């Protein structure tokens, strides 16, 4: 057969592409449930990991089952709060399928960016009201409760995200960072214990105010002053972590204040009334100035 004829070439291309597309579609559909389970378990592991739980995940024979068991055991509640600290939704069972678990920090971050880019104050306030912030409540073996907060921001190459466990007294019990595509060995080092363990014990909320965590270069961090050593060679990613934390913590602030005063977890979900818009807006503008 003459393989150089035009009709042959065209038919050949169509058949080839159709066959390849079918194979890819079948494999993609077939593997989707498994991939989605991995993504879910990853999130559960991150949430547990920030509070230094599920430490045996690496050696467990069935990692996914182990993580899901540990998650059920320790994470006893989940909430969706708004930026005035009111609890919008509250869950105490089946947490890995609840709405709080499904809130996408990435979507919230998009909204935050929109808020920062909006000049009109009224529109800004309306958007701030729309933010939905997930909180996971971790009941520790020793009876204390930790509040695990989300974070999401822009790294050097792609998104970075965090889970930070905060104690009732406003101290950080543990933090965990992860990233999509930071440089391995440089920005990618934010996932290491060496970096994240620096956050443990830092005060994030004191007298109702957020104390920013500062990342400093050159390994000269003053632990007393809430300073963290940046990763050498990865200044941009390190700074991105700092910005992410201050960004999200400012939105979480009203809720954290309630936690500190002990009023938080006895509270049932409420209807959003009239949140304290001015304070939040003020915080925002302050923050923009700082970042500039």
């Amino acid at each position: 057969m003459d393989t150089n004829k035009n009709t042959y070439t065209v038919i050949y291309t169509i058949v080839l592409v159709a066959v390849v597309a079918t194979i890819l579609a079948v494999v993609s559909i077939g593997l989707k449930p498994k991939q989605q389970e991995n993504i879910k378990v990853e999130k559960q592991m991150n949430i547990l990991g920030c509070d230094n739980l599920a430490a045996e995940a690496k050696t467990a024979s069935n990692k996914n089952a182990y993580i899901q068991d540990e998650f059920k055991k320790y994470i006893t509640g989940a909430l969706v709060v708004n930026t005035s600290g009111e609890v919008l939704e509250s869950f105490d069972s089946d947490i890995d399928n609840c709405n709080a678990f499904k809130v996408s920090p990435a979507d919230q971050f998009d909204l935050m960016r929109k808020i920062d880019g909006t000049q009109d104050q009224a529109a800004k306030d309306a958007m701030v009201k729309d933010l939905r912030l997930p909180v996971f409540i971790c009941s520790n073996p020793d009876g204390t409760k930790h509040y695990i907060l989300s974070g999401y921001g822009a790294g050097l190459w792609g998104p970075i995200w965090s889970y930070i466990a905060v104690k009732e007294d406003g101290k950080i019990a543990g933090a965990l960072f992860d990233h999509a595509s930071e440089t391995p060995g440089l920005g990618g080092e934010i996932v290491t214990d060496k970096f994240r363990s620096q956050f443990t014990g830092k005060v994030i909320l004191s007298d109702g105010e957020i104390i920013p965590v500062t990342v400093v270069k050159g390994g000269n961090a003053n632990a007393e002053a809430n300073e963290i050593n940046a990763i050498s060679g990865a200044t941009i990613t390190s700074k991105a972590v700092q910005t992410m934390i201050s960004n999200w913590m400012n939105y979480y602030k009203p809720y954290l204040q309630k936690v500190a005063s002990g009023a938080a977890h006895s509270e049932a979900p409420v209807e959003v009334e009239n949140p304290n818009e001015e304070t939040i807006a003020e915080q925002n503008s302050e923050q923009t100035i700082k970042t500039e």
Partner: protein
Amino acid sequence: MAMDKKIFTTPIIKANPITVLVLGICSALAVTVKLEPAIVMGISVTLVTGLSSFLISLIRKTIPNRIRIIVQLVVVAMFVILISEFLKAYVYDVSKQLSVYVGLIITNCIIMGRIEAFGLTEKPLPSLVDGLANGLGYGLILVIIAFFRELIGSGSIFGAQIIPQSWYEAGYMNNGLFIMPPMALILIGCLIWIQRSYQKEDKK
């Protein structure tokens, strides 16, 4: 060409795709900071080169000459996406570590180079062996470079600390240059240098 041991052994050292043919350098820079991703990358590239060479060789007589590059590209891309999907489903951690570089296997010149030079003219089985061997030769260099970069740059092997803490206290420091891509290029240069000085007879 009959099945010959040389098809397998030559690409691993004597005609190594990185040090001799100088192909696929870019990914050798990107994924060699740590050993684990380097090994997974080596295995993935080996599978893709082997399988795509094999498949192209199987259908080589039917491929219209004018669109052969596009056909090769489609086949290579298919295997790369398949591998990426399987990594995501079964070794999620590793697929996260490799992130975009799995997708970039498509652009690895070794694969297209071997298909053009070998798979398009030879029988399926030798093509498969040739592809696998080239992938292994590539993986070998990746592992050697990653070994030195991880050891000297981060003081660890497979993520486990090797340099004892007492050294650091005595003033030892991890060499930051080894984490940077330029050092991979220098290491490749050293490897090429070593190899050329032993393979003088290959001079053209």
